[in-house]
């Protein structure tokens, strides 16, 4: 099945411009469509010039945190005597997010070219693509593409006589959401359980095998060739101030035309739902939106007239996250929704630190009990209290990711929880109290 949609007139196709061309993943098609032009240009640039171009682009990390990419590149100590590594985070597992799949399936060389340019900028000659285990077909595809690039001189020793060496390897994950967290990913890359590391030192200084490492999401690397080819300023101009360029938005849930769309940063959320996604499914009323993957606080329908960029979402006390936009219509039970989210985080908590390990499990138990009709009036406050006590007290962001949506759901839909509780006294859904 073809995963990309018919282009929508509102889309701005920068990263997805080659989608739809037959065999867009192959080297020949890539070369016929501006492939490696940016790399050739970057060969003639000084590392600082490349990094300045990245800074000018206003590109912010597409994995979720939104850290300015150029800044991250500049943190890697180029003069370090240690080897420097590039690692691509292709562990895409944030619920609601399915964009990196498309970028790797339909334009894998664009991502690799972005990695090569990063290699020139930070003096790195070895790169690893950490792909979640479930995406085996993409690992196989990347392996074939990489073999072809070696065979035709676009990877390996002195690429096309430039004197620049670059090696790329794929590395499979084995089913762990936590490994999307950068330091847990590095531990996993090193063959260990994926648990987070204490920061600082940040990966830029001590990452893979204690060496300086540039670790970035698939989509971020995929944006690099366009930035170098057309200039950082041109990319920045597509978006809003401090939020350069376009990004891939994954529309899912109760929407007429779910799909992955490339839209300018700062695109209005309501317009995205109604004009790009074709509106709420079945003409129903909008209830809430998860703006960037399940870790983000939900927006109520009346909060959705908002520009989708990192700053506007932060101002609304949510996050742009990883681009997973999940639409919930009026029929959605928020108690059940909160419970399902917490089941996920409890399952994926790595167990390294106690507030997350115990907090997610406790929240899961309480939410299941509440959902099953055994809730008490104290539970709503208890859920809120546990979540707030996890927030900011965990080793990595997974604890926050579990707490934030929960707090937002309880705060914004408290009346629904109360109504649910009132109904529970007469209708118990699950007669036996589930012991989890």
């Amino acid at each position, binding site marked *: 099945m073809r995963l990309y949609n018919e282009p929508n007139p509102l889309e701005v196709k920068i990263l997805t411009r080659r989608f739809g061309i037959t065999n867009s993943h192959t080297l020949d098609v890539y070369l016929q469509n501006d492939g490696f032009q940016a790399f050739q240009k970057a060969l003639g640039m000084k590392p600082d010039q490349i990094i300045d171009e990245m800074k000018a682009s206003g590109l912010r990390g597409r994995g979720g945190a939104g850290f300015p990419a150029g800044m991250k590149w500049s943190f890697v100590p180029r003069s370090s005597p240690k080897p420097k590594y590039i690692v691509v985070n292709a562990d895409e597992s944030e*619920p609601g997010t399915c964009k990196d*799949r498309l970028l790797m399936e339909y334009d894998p060389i664009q991502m690799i070219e972005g990695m090569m340019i990063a290699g020139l900028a930070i003096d790195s000659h070895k790169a690893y693509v950490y792909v979640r285990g479930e995406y085996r077909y993409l690992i196989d595809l990347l392996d074939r593409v990489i073999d072809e690039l070696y065979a035709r001189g676009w990877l390996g020793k002195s690429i096309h006589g430039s004197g620049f060496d670059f090696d790329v390897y794929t590395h499979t994950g084995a089913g762990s959401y936590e490994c999307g967290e950068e330091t847990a990913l590095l531990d996993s890359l090193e*063959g260990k359980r994926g648990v987070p590391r204490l920061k600082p030192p940040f990966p830029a200084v001590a990452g893979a095998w204690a060496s300086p490492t540039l670790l970035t999401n698939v989509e971020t690397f995929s944006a690099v060739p366009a930035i170098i080819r057309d200039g950082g300023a041109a990319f920045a101009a597509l978006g809003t101030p401090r939020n350069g360029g376009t990004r891939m938005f994954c529309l899912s*849930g109760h929407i007429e035309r*779910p799909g992955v769309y490339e839209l300018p940063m700062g695109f209005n959320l309501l317009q995205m739902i109604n004009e790009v996604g074709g509106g709420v499914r079945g003409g129903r009323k909008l209830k809430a939106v*998860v703006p960037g993957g399940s870790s983000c606080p939900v927006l109520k329908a009346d909060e959705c007239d908002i520009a989708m960029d990192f700053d506007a979402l932060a101002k609304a006390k949510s996050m742009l996250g990883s681009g997973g936009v999940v639409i919930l219509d009026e029929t959605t039970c928020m108690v059940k929704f909160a419970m399902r989210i917490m089941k996920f985080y409890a399952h994926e908590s790595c167990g390294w630190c106690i507030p997350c390990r115990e907090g997610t499990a406790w929240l899961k138990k309480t939410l299941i009990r509440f959902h099953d009709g055994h809730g008490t009036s104290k539970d709503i406050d208890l859920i809120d209290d546990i979540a707030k006590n996890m927030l900011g007290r965990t080793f990595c962001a997974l604890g926050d990711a579990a707490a934030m949506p929960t707090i937002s759901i309880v705060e914004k839909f408290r009346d629904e929880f109360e109504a649910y509780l009132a109904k529970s006294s007469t209708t118990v859904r699950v007669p036996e109290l589930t012991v989890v």
Partner: protein
Amino acid sequence: MIFPPELEARFDKMLKAYPEGRQRSAVIPMLMYAQDAIGMVTPELVQEVARRCGVTALQVDEVVGYYTMLHRKPFGRHHIQVCTNISCMLRGGEELLAHASKRLGIGNREATADGQFSLEEVECIGACSWAPALIDNYEFHHSVTPEKLDQLIDSLQKKAQ
């Protein structure tokens, strides 16, 4: 243990992909690819991966215990993984899982008596815009309805005969 030549070649290449002295990095990929070849992680496989990567068997064991895709019990020849996370839940993922369970007569992480199928409820598989979705071994199936699931199972059963 000796693996098929293609896999041996892959492992040789894999061990050279990581910096000198960092061959522990190959533990997870080696387990994943070997598990696909032999069906599960056996104690012998743990020993073998430890030997090849230069680590202790315990260091391999703790990895096996951590990652959900590594399993010490055999799955069916077709391991059906149904996603019920939010995007799939909103479009019928739970009903799809219930249907699969009923049709196959097995529960979560169980296998049919003939070893043909096993079933697992999985977390987000990155198919949110084409929900509900499932994976058969490594093959994605999108926008799956109970009817489409029946057709899939029928065709897989027919192929096995």
